[in-house]
C-alpha cells in the first residue's frame, strides 16, 4: 500500500511537466498550428527558471520567468509561421535547435551550482500521513496543471473565445470570412503554448532535480507532442494520457528496482511504448470515423486569406 502511494507521488512528478507542456501544445494545435519546438521552448524555460531561482530563490518568480522566456521564444515561431506563413514543421524544428543551443550557452556558467527545490504548497502537517501525502505533498505546478486541464476544457468548449479558436483551427477560411482575425487568434494560442512549455521546462530544476544540465528535458518535449495526439486533442484525455505516460516512464524504474514480473520487459520496449501507443491510438480514433475526434482540419497548414 505504502509503495503504491509512493509510486503515485513519483508518477505525479514525472507527469506534471509533460502535462503542462502538452496542454499548451493542445491549445496551439486546436488553433490549427503545429509547433514542434516544444522541446526547445522547454529548455529555454528550464534555464530561465534555473537562473532566476539561483539568483533570487523565489520559485514563483522563477516559474513566471520560465513561462515568459518560453513565450518570448514562441514569438519567433509565431512571427515566422503566422506573419510570414513559413512552414511550421521546419520552423518548429529550428526552434528546438535554437532552444537547445541557447540554453546550453546561457547555462554554461551555472554548472556545479545547486538550487533549492520548490516547497510544497500545503503545510507539511497536512501531508504527514501517507494517504494525505498523495494529495497534499506537491508544490504549486502540480495543482496548477490540474486546474489548467479544467480551465482549458472550459475555455475551449464553454466560451465564445474557445469556440472562435476551434473555428480557426477547423476552417480558417470561413472563420476569416465571418470577420475573425485568424492570425491574431493563432498568435495568442502560440504564445500561450510557449508560456506553458517554458513553465513546464522550469519545473525540471524546480520540481524534479534542482540543478541545471544541458538538454535536461531529455526528449520530454517530444513526448508532450505525442501526448496531444494520443489524447486526440481533448484536455481530459490529455490528463489521463499524461498520467499514463508518466506511469509507463516511472513503472519501468520501479519494476527494475523491485524485480518481479514487469522487470523482464526490456527497457527499450518501455521507452518506445509511449510512441507506439500514440500510433495505435491514432489508428483507433481514425477507425471510429467520428470526425470530432480527429485532428484540427487546418493543423500545420499556413493561413493565406483566399480573397
Amino acid at each position, binding site marked *: 500500500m505504502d509503495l503504491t502511494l509512493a509510486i503515485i507521488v513519483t508518477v505525479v512528478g514525472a507527469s506534471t511537466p509533460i502535462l503542462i507542456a502538452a496542454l499548451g501544445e493542445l491549445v496551439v494545435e486546436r488553433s490549427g498550428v*503545429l509547433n*514542434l519546438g516544444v522541446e526547445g521552448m522547454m529548455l529555454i524555460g528550464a534555464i530561465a527558471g534555473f537562473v532566476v531561482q539561483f539568483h533570487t530563490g523565489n520559485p514563483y518568480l522563477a516559474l513566471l520567468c520560465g513561462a515568459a522566456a518560453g513565450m518570448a521564444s514562441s514569438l*519567433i515561431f509565431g*512571427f*515566422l509561421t503566422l506573419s*510570414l*506563413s*513559413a*512552414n511550421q*514543421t*521546419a*520552423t518548429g*524544428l*529550428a*526552434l528546438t*535547435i*535554437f532552444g*537547445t*543551443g*541557447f*540554453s*546550453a*550557452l546561457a547555462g*554554461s556558467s551555472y554548472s556545479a551550482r545547486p538550487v533549492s527545490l520548490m516547497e510544497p504548497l500545503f503545510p507539511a502537517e497536512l501531508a504527514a500521513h501517507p494517504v494525505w501525502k498523495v494529495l497534499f505533498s506537491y508544490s504549486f505546478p502540480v495543482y496548477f496543471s490540474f486546474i489548467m486541464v479544467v480551465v482549458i476544457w472550459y475555455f475551449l468548449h464553454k466560451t465564445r473565445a474557445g469556440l472562435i479558436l476551434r473555428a480557426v483551427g477547423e476552417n480558417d477560411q470561413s472563420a476569416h470570412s465571418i470577420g475573425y482575425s485568424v492570425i491574431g487568434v493563432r498568435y495568442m494560442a502560440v504564445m500561450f503554448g510557449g508560456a506553458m512549455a517554458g513553465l513546464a521546462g522550469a519545473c525540471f530544476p524546480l520540481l524534479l532535480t534542482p540543478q541545471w544540465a*544541458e538538454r535536461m528535458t531529455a*526528449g520530454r518535449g*517530444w513526448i508532450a*507532442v*505525442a501526448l496531444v*495526439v494520443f489524447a486526440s486533442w481533448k484536455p481530459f484525455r490529455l490528463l489521463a494520457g499524461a498520467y499514463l505516460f508518466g506511469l509507463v516512464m516511472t513503472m519501468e524504474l520501479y519494476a527494475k528496482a523491485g524485480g518481479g514480473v514487469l522487470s523482464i520487459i*526490456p*527497457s*527499450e*520496449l518501455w*521507452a*518506445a511504448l509511449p*510512441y*507506439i501507443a*500514440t*500510433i495505435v491510438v*491514432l*489508428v483507433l480514433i*481514425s*477507425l471510429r470515423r467520428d470526425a470530432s475526434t*480527429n*485532428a484540427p482540419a487546418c*493543423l*500545420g497548414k499556413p493561413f493565406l486569406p483566399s480573397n
Partner: protein
Amino acid sequence: MQFRLEKRQEPSKFMAYATPVAAVALTMIIGAIIFSLIGYDGVGAVREIFLTPLTNSYKWQDLGVKAAPLIIIGVGLSIAYRANVWNIGAEGQYIVGGLCATGIALLTWGMTGWWILPLMMLAGMAGGMAYASIPALLRTKLKVNEILTSLMLTYASVQLIYFLIRGPWKDPMGIGFPQTRLFSEAARLPTIIPGTIVHLGVPIAVLVAIIAWFIMSKSVFGYRMRVVGAAPHAARYGGFSENKTIWLAMLVSGGLAGLAGMLEIAGPFQRMVPGFPTNYGFTAIIVAFLGRLNPLGVIVAGVVLAITFVGGEVAQTTIGLPNAATGIFQAMMLFFLLAGDILIKYRVRRVMPQTSTEVA
C-alpha cells in the same frame, strides 16, 4: 507610411535563389554581432564556422563525407515535400535502413564477395521504404496525419537499435559494450580517393541528386509530384491519384533515407553503435528547405550545413567557442531563410495609410 504584402503573379525565381544566400549572409553578420556582444570573438566565430572549412582544402573531405547523407536524405524529402507529403521521420527510416544493412553485414560476416555491398544497399533501401510505408498506409487508408506517425516511429526506431546491440547483435569480442562486431572487409564501403576518407557514398549522393533533379524536372513522375503538391484539386481532375502520390513520395523519401543509413553504417561507422542516430534525418529537413526543395539546391544546402558542423568544431579549438554556438548559428540561418520565403510569392509594397485602409 505602411508596408503591405502583395501576391506576385508568379513565384519569383530571383527571390528563390537570392533568399538562401541572403539568409546565410545575414546569419554571418548578425551572428558576429550577437556573439561579440556576449563576449566572444564574433568575427572569428563566423570566420571559423563558415569560411575555414572552405578555405582549408584539408577539410574538403570532411565536408563531402558529412554532406553526403544530408544530401541523399534531403533529396528524398524535397521530393516528398513538393508533393505536400510531410515525412518528418526520415531519421527513423535512416536508422531502420542502417539496421537492415547491419543485419546483412552480420549474416555475411567473414564472407567475401562483391555482392555483399549491393545486397546491403538493397536491404537498407528496403528497410527505409518499409518503415516509411507505415505512415503511408495510415495516411492513405485511415487519413492519419503522416507528420505525427513518422515522428513517433523515429523514436521507436532508436530503441530498436539499443535493443539489438545490447542483446542479439552484441559484439562477442566487445567485452560487454553495446555495439555489434566490426564489419568484415567485404561489407565496408571502399574509399574512392586514396589517402582521404572520401567513400563511395559521396559520389552516390551527388548522383542521386542529379538523377532526382532530372526526374523531377523532366519526367511525368516529377510533373505529377509537383502538380499534386501545388494544386491537389487540379491534380485529381487530371487523373492523378492522391493516394498513389503519397505512396510514391513516402517510398522514395524513405528509400533514400534507408540508403543513406546503409552508406553511413558501411562507410564511416563499419559497425552499429548506440551513437548511430546523429540527427541526419532531422538536419536533412533543414537541408531540403535551404535547398528550396530542389535536388540541385539540396547539394549546395547539404554542403552549407556540413560547413557549419565542421566549422563549429574548428571554432571550439581555435577560438574557444562553445559547442552550443553551432546550433544557434544553424537555427538562425533557418529562421532567416524561412522568413525570406514569403518574398518568393509576395512582394513588399509601400503604401500610404489611407490607401491601405481602403484595401483592408
